Structures are given as C-alpha cells and as structure tokens.
C-alpha cells in the first residue's frame, strides 16, 4: 500500500525513516551487500590470525633468530629462514633487473609509438600472457629453459663474467638464475600493462611542450613523459616484485631445492614459497609444520608491505598526474 504510506508521511523521525527504508527494501539490500563486503575484511583478518597463531611454537622457540639463522635441519629440529629469504629476495630482484627494462621499453612502445590497432592487439596478447597458469611456466621451464640455461646461457656467462663470484662455480641448469629468468617472464605482463596505463595518463601537452623546445622524440619521451608517469611505473615494478616474491610453482620446479646460502647464481637454492610447497605435506610433529607456517607468515608480510606500497603509488597516479604535488 504505497499510496497510503505516502499520505501518512508527516510522522517522521530518524527511526521512522530507517524503518521505512527497511520496508522499502533499500536498507535490507544495503545490509545484505554490506555483510558480503565485510566478509572480505573478516576473511583477511582470519587469515592473519591463523598464520600468527599456527606459527606460535617456532616464534617462541627461536624468536627473531628464526630470521637470521641459516640452519634448516628438520631432523634435529633446527629451523632458520635465512637461506629461503635470501633465495626469495635474490631471485625476485634478479628477475626485476631483466623484466623492468624490457617491460618499460615495451610499455613506451605501446603507449607512445605504436598505432592504436597494433597497440591494442599487443596489449591483448600481453594480457593473455598474464593468464597463463604458473604450473605451465613450470613445465616449460623444466623441459626447455633448464637445458637452454645449462648448455648455452650459463656457460657463456661463466666464460665472459666468470671472474666474479656471482658467475662462477659448477653449472646445473637448476638454480637462482633460471628461477629469475622464469620469474622475469611471469612478471613482465604486469609491468607492461600497468606502466602502459600510467604512460597513457600523461597529458599530450607534456609531449608537445618538449617537442616544441626542440627535443627529439626520444628525449621528449624519456625526459618529459616517463618522469611524469614515474609513480605509476614504480607501482608496476612493486606489483611485479610482490608477484615474484610469492610465486610458487614455476620457481619450485627449477630452483634446485638446496637449503643453504650460495654466492653463485648458477647454484641451486631455495625460496620461501618453494620450501613450503615441497615440505609441507611431509612435515610431521608440531614444530616442523609450524616452522613452515612461520615462513608463510614472513612471505605474507613481505608481499603485503610491497603490495600496499604498489597500490598507494598506483592510486596516486591514477587520481592525478604525478608531476603535480
């Protein structure tokens, strides 16, 4: 009876309007969707709580020594995270060294040079590349990249750069460098698509002004356009870094599974995600699985901080050009 309700409208107050909105359905709909939105917060909170409470035993036993010890010996109950943290960080940084120049270069081409048709076709293919499941990268890495690295790339690097500790020692094919290459391929699409969006946000005047001052096309791009979009590009790099740190399957398949520290990039190592993937189902007792959960917590904190930074940078650039204060 909507009409009679409208006629009796004058009796109003905050409670009354709330009740009316409730019978109207709007308030019900808002509360229902609100509950689902809150689910996201609850799940995330629960996730953090579970990681924290399930890693209590090693946290009390080792304290911060867990992060700095390089002993990982499940049989004797020795658990130190350093070799895994080192492997995770070194493979991720190496992968960025490969992916960032390649990705930013490709993004510049797609946003500044390519005709719209080519640009959107390339972007489409690059987004497909981002959709390829991680385990498939793993299969390709094991069967094609590892032999390639073992037989050609690593011997070449050893011959030319072998005088440094980074590129010396025996060659296996499995190890930090191979993991870094596959990670670079996997992070590349994220860096390209987000950098491209940041570059497209740059106003045309910025380019025209540089060209009018007599800059070449490249100088205009590199000195006027790229600095303008720098926050978004940094954001894409951080996002790529977070992906690389948490990437599991492909790395697990090529890292070589050696829980000790090595200077050589050719040597087998381990990452946090890889050791969790490999040892979790075999971990017995109380301390061992909890030590792996503690590693998971370290990985979670590492990626959450870098992701938060990346999101802030991306929000900052998409709201306004980064050249404005």
């Amino acid at each position, binding site marked *: 009876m909507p009409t009679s309700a409208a006629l009796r409208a004058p009796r109003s107050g905050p409670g009354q309007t709330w009740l009316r909105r409730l019978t109207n359905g709007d308030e019900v*709909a808002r509360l229902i969707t609100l509950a689902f939105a809150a689910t996201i917060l609850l799940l995330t909170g629960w996730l953090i709580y579970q*990681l924290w409470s399930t890693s209590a035993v090693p946290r009390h036993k080792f304290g911060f020594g867990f992060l700095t010890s390089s002993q990982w010996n499940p049989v004797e109950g020795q658990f130190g995270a350093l070799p895994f943290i080192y492997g995770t960080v070194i493979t991720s940084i190496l992968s960025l060294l490969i992916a960032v120049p390649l990705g930013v270069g*490709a993004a510049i081409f797609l946003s500044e040079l390519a005709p719209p048709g080519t640009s959107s076709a390339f972007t489409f293919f690059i987004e497909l590349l981002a959709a390829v499941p991680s385990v*498939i990268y793993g299969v390709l890495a094991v069967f094609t990249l590892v032999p390639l690295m073992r037989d050609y790339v690593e011997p070449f690097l050893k011959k030319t750069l072998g005088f440094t500790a980074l590129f010396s020692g025996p060659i296996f094919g499995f190890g930090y460098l191979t993991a870094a290459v596959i990670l670079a391929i996997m992070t590349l699409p994220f860096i390209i698509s987000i950098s491209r969006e940041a570059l497209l946000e740059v106003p045309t005047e910025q380019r025209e002004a540089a060209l009018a001052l007599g800059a070449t096309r*490249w100088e205009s791009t590199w000195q006027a356009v790229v600095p303008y979009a720098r926050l978004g590009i940094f954001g894409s790099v951080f996002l790529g870094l977070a*992906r690389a740190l*948490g990437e*599991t399957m492909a790395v697990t398949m090529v890292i070589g599974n050696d829980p000790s520290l090595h200077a050589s990039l050719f040597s087998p190592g381990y990452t946090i995600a890889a050791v969790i993937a490999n040892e979790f189902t075999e971990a017995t007792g109380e301390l061992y699985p909890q030590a792996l959960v503690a590693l998971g917590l370290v990985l979670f904190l590492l990626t959450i901080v870098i992701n938060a930074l990346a999101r802030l940078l991306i929000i900052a650039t998409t709201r306004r050009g980064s050249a404005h204060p």
Partner: protein
Amino acid sequence: MSFRNRWRKILSSLMLSLTGVCAVVAVSILFLILGLLVYNGWRSVDWNFFTQLPKSPGETGGGMANAIVGSCEIVVLATLIGLPVGFMAGVYLAEFGGKTFAFLVRYTADLLNGVPSIVIGIFAWSVLVVRMHTYSALAGGFALAMILIPITARSTEQFMTSVPQTLREGALALGASKWKTIATVVVPAAHRGIATGMILGVARIAGETAPLLFTSLNNQYWNTSLTQPTASLPYMIYTRAMSPYDDWHRQAWAAGMVLLLLVLFANVAARLILSRGIAVQK
C-alpha cells in the same frame, strides 16, 4: 647539421626501435609458449588421456580422467562460494559504499588479491584440513574461493560504476527504489562486464596449483565424496613434470596443453563478450 644534433637523432631512432624490440619480445614469448605446448602436447594427447585413470609410477599409458573431473569439482565448489560473495561485495562497493568503509574494503580486497596463493593454501589447510583431519576437495575449493572473491568483487564494482549515472536517475525518477534500480537497471546494463570479470576470475583459479598442494592433495583413483583427497589437473601436471619417467613427461605436456587451451579460450571468450557490450559502459 652539427654532429651533436645528428647524434641526438640517431640516438632517438635507436632507442625508439629498441622499445619496439622489447614489445615484440614480450609478445613473442606468448607465441613461443603456445607453440611449444601445442607442439609437444599434441603429440602426447590421446583418447586414453581423457578416459583412463593414472597408471602406477613407471608404467606406460593411462590418463587423467579423475583429475579432469576432480578439477571441475574443485572449481565448481570455489565458484559457488566465490562468485556470489564477490558479486554482492562488488555491488556494495559500487552502489552503497560510503567513503571510509568502502575504501577499506577495496584496499583489503586488493591486498588479498596480492597474497601469494601458497599462503592462501596454508590458511585453508589450517582452517579445514587440520580440523577435518583429511585433505579434501572442500578445502581446495575453499582456498580457490578465497582467491576468486576479491577478483570478482573488484571487477563487478569496476563495471557497475561505469554504468552512466543518468540510467540510475531515470529509474529513480520513475519511482523505483534503489535496490530495484540496481537489480533491474544497473546490473543488466553492466552484465557483460560483470560476466567477463567472472569468467576471467574462474579461468585464473582453474590454473592455480599452489593452494591445492596441501588442501585437496591428489588421488590415484576416482573419489566419491567431497571430503576425500581429490586429484586435479594442475597438481597432476606438477607431479608428472617433476617425475623421472618419460611417459609421465609426455602426459605433463598433454595436460599442460589442455589446461592452457582451456584457460586461453576462456580469456578470449571473456574479452569477446566484453567488446560486444562496450556501448553500455561509456
């Protein structure tokens, strides 16, 4: 022209062509992946692959029928949990969201989206596997749903906010209540975009392996219930590729090709749906 200016011009064209090389390299990686998988997978896939159970380690032949069905089970479970929750949360963010709380939810969803999938696996393990004392399809489905929820929420929100405000105003002016406006005007107008986001999300979780390692585990046989360890295609690919047997490597290629083609097909289909509906989301 002075030497310096000539050098600037040369540098300009050199660097610009280098950026082109970067783009071509990035795109050719996709075709290399596709080519290698189809080349190796096509030689390895046969009818048995789709109809038979896996053989014991070292034996030749067999297939992955149970893993294909298991994957479907786990993905359907995750979809049944993840899509409704994600969709409703997305509706809230787009239509009812205030300033602070909506920002918080949005930011948390993005962070949850960035949590490594193996950590999600640990969470599902500690919540379900430990309590139920068994690995199960249920735990795998729950883990994948955790990944699907923030993806769906954010894409639903994105496509609903791109529906023009005038459409909403038109409906409200005709006397429709807000929820009726959303249900009969906004969602239908954005339905292609929302569907695209959902398909992309499901395609993403279908290929996830890490969250399944210690939630649904694996199974050599047909399983009859959702509370048993369940085989899945990504997990099979992993174990087959890491095994020392040539015949299992062959199967890894075959399964990899099937999975990749499914995922890429879903992605292309989703984008086609979207490109036809582009008119409504100006």
